[in-house]
């Protein structure tokens, strides 16, 4: 048994020493994932593509933290006040893809998951602007 095994999910997801990428992976694999998709113009990628991105991205990711606008949604009121957002890329079979990711952790004071509001390919996003 490792020290990590004795920690609660909230303790693991709130570990200041862990990278955002590690915490995100833990939140998705051990906690809850709320994922917004099916949006058009620009489209959010399907949830399985997000999971694959999270598995493959090497990091470290450099996120910007911004104040969260909406309190709607299942975790809107209980979610943390700040959203993270960052861009990063993955490369597989010689093909590179760069994505924009935005989301926030929930619940405030008892982290048990992550809500992903945006996960989009950067190229498509730029073409929309």
């Amino acid at each position, binding site marked *: 048994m490792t020290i990590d095994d004795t920690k609660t999910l909230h303790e693991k997801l709130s570990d200041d020493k862990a990278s955002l990428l590690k915490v995100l992976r833990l939140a998705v694999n051990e906690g*809850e*994932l*709320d*994922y*917004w*998709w*099916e*949006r*058009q*113009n*620009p489209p*959010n*990628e*399907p*949830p*399985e*593509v997000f*999971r*694959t*991105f999270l598995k*493959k991205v090497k990091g470290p990711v450099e996120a910007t933290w911004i104040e*969260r*606008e*909406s309190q*709607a*949604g*299942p975790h809107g009121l209980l979610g943390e006040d700040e959203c993270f957002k960052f861009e990063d890329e*993955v490369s*597989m*079979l*010689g*093909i590179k*893809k760069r994505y924009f990711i*935005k989301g926030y952790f929930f619940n405030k004071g008892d982290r048990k998951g992550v809500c992903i*509001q*945006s996960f989009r390919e950067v190229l498509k*996003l730029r073409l*929309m*602007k």
Partner: protein
Amino acid sequence: MKIECSHKDLKNETHERKFQDEVFKYKSKTCLDCGAVLWNEVNEKKFNSWLIDLYKQKRHLFQVQYNLSENVIQCVDKLSERFPWIDQSLLIRALVVLNLDVVEENQEILNLVEGHLESEDYKHLTSGAMIAKKLQFKPNGMQEILAYSGMLKVRPSKIIEESINRILLLGIKADPILKAFWEDTIIKNLETILKAA
């Protein structure tokens, strides 16, 4: 429409998620501003359970048809001789997984592999008559192949073909680093995976 939306105005609506040509219907919160739909753990569990039922009824939907050159098939046949107790489709699946999860994660090896993609050896390996094959997946394996396919915007068959061609290159090149990686990592992992299967 805004580039970013924080999904403020929501309504419960019924939606459809397609798998091949089959339709999974689910109810979920929908953003009235941008049309985004919430996919959560409840939907994920229902969808996975629906996929398992679909697999029991229509196994052919979890098959991928792919093409390999006759030279690649010969290499696979030769490799199969080292694992005579297993079905060749299991070997193909294991090679795909090892390419995506091991070779693609090792930057030094990946650079060497990609450096040989224009070589005569690779051209020889992938040339000649193409032979069509089918690979059966279980629901989770099929979802993983479809996720790679969705991410790279290529057909699922391309993930299999490219993975097999690339990983076999490790075994045929005279490069000592690739040779050592093939024997010490790929073959050892194959032994572990195939013995456990």
